């Protein structure tokens, strides 16, 4: 009995541990796939760590891939396939940015998806390529990847690109803060919600158990009714009014990811490459 009590007493601790563990599970992704063996082990680990941190910060997946063999695919196809095969994306969304060094084609390619495409549109991809390209000529691959991470961080921090609508001269619309968080809740927020829901469930169950901790009445309206003695002698249902209200159905267009995709293919895919 005492032992059982101890186990029960440990449960809150277990709850906290589970909470912490879950964050780790999400974060423990491999972010750097150095198949062309361009980085030293230390460099790889270092980049991986930064990518994980950046991923948490920007709430989208940040992946660095190098390859010697693009299997005859173009860099853009290879990046897309790699992204989908590995199921990247932040917490169930497909949000992310992938940096590919395709040594087969000697090409650097930036692939963006959904939120990544929203923030890093075609012109920003060009901007990115301008920055990561120079070190590649000197075979400073780590430096290029490092610049990629830094540039992505500053672009994400700058917010989504603002479009000049030209005609009216007013600056058009930008994605608001809410708009971007609506795509996917932050990990901590989500866990917080889970925690609240589970505490609520616990509370309800305990409430029911407390109700059961005493004798309850089992008598109902029919307990003392003589069998078949209840008869309806009069029954009237009279319709006297009708009220109709109408409501416009809102079309749900909250995810604008694909709107900005240059390809127009599979939802929110963007990117660009440059040979070196």
């Amino acid at each position, binding site marked *: 009995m005492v032992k059982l009590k101890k186990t029960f007493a440990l449960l809150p601790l277990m709850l906290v541990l589970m909470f912490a563990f879950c964050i780790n599970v999400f974060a423990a992704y491999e972010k750097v796939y150095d198949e062309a063996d361009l980085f030293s082990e230390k460099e790889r680990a270092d980049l991986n760590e930064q990518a994980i941190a950046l991923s948490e910060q920007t709430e989208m997946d940040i992946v660095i891939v190098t390859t010697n063999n693009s299997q005859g695919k173009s860099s853009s196809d290879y990046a897309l396939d790699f992204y989908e095969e590995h199921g990247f994306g932040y917490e169930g969304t497909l949000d992310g940015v992938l940096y590919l060094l395709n040594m087969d084609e000697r090409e650097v390619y930036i692939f963006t998806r959904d939120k990544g495409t929203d923030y890093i549109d075609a012109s920003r991809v060009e901007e990115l390529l301008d920055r990561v390209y120079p070190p590649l000529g000197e075979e400073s691959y780590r430096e290029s990847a490092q610049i990629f991470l830094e540039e992505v961080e500053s672009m994400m921090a700058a917010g989504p690109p603002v479009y000049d609508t030209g005609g009216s001269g007013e600056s058009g619309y930008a994605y608001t803060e809410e708009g971007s968080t609506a795509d996917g809740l932050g990990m901590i927020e989500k866990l917080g919600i889970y925690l609240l829901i589970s505490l609520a469930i616990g509370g309800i*169950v305990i409430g029911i158990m407390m109700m059961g901790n005493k004798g309850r009445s089992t008598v109902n309206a029919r307990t003392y009714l003589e069998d078949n003695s209840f008869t309806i002698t*009069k029954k009237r249902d009279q319709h006297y009014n009708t009220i109709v*209200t109408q409501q416009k159905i809102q079309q749900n267009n909250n995810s604008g990811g694909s709107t900005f995709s240059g390809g127009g293919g599979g939802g929110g895919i963007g990117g660009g490459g440059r040979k070196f």
Partner: protein
Amino acid sequence: MGVIVYKCINCGGPLAFKAETQNWTCDYCLSEFSEQEVREFILNEQAQAEAETSSAVLEEHKLQDQEFQEKAMGYTCESCGAEIVTDDTTAATFCYYCHNPTIIPRRLEGEFRPEKVIPFKFNREKATEIFINWCKKKPLLSKQFTSTSELEKLSGIYVPFWLFDCHSDGGINGTATRVRTYTSGDTRYTETKYYRVHREGKAIFRDVPADGSKKMDDELMSILEPYDYKDLTDFSMSFLSGYLAEKYDMDQNDVYGRVSGLIRDNMESLLRETVRGYSSVSINDSDIKMKNVDATYVLLPVWMFTYQFKGKTYMFAMNGQTGKIAGKLPISPGRAASWFSGVSAVAFAALMIGGQFLW
């Protein structure tokens, strides 16, 4: 002749009603008697006693103060001669000194004579067993609670109840709505139709119980319901031997308010159930009348448990026929906290696993 002690026909030892065998067994010579035998024996005794004391005692009675007659608290034990101390609603008890079951017939005379009784169906040991089994099923109860040492008092009491028969008829008025939604183009229409509903009906209610003892908590007693009335037998004082018994101190008029309210509620919900097929129903008024009201005075068996736990007194009542229990158990904060965190942890884990697929 203030009190009755049922005595064994064979050896003269005190005789108590045994719930487990539903007859009377002498604890001393192990003779068993049926209700018929006990009754005959009592009638003989009474006839004898009356013959002996008739004239002399009657005169003596007249001299006694009327107030004392009605409220008298003191009776003398037939077996040991000690004073039996009771309050003025007790009809059956035990001698404080020799512990012989004692019945005070004056308290069950005339209008206080119950028409029917449901005898106890199980004995003290069985009652304790049922109670402990019930406690074991309560996950929030402290484990120490059931250790028998905490049981301060357990007594089998015949509680006075009024059983009401009545014909009820009446009607209810209310409004009901039926809601329908449909879509046309990009507009959603919500159509709410309003109805006036009216129902009238009649019903017969039988044996609606209400306890007639101020000592007994009404709420506790109502949770013991229902009793199975097929076990109702004609009243005989011999059933009380070995148990406590109360006489009513609230007559049928005093409890009628409670019962009529209950029957009104029942009738209203029966009528309410016949309003079907609506999205919402609200009853505005109801008018329910009762006639042919008839009350029967009966004694129903109740085991009363008094528990002392952590300085507090807990009272429980058990239906002496069905074993149904009323009363509130103490909640162990430790066990409640454990269950709370346990359930929450499981729910959290389930959400984490489920959330992987959903989000």
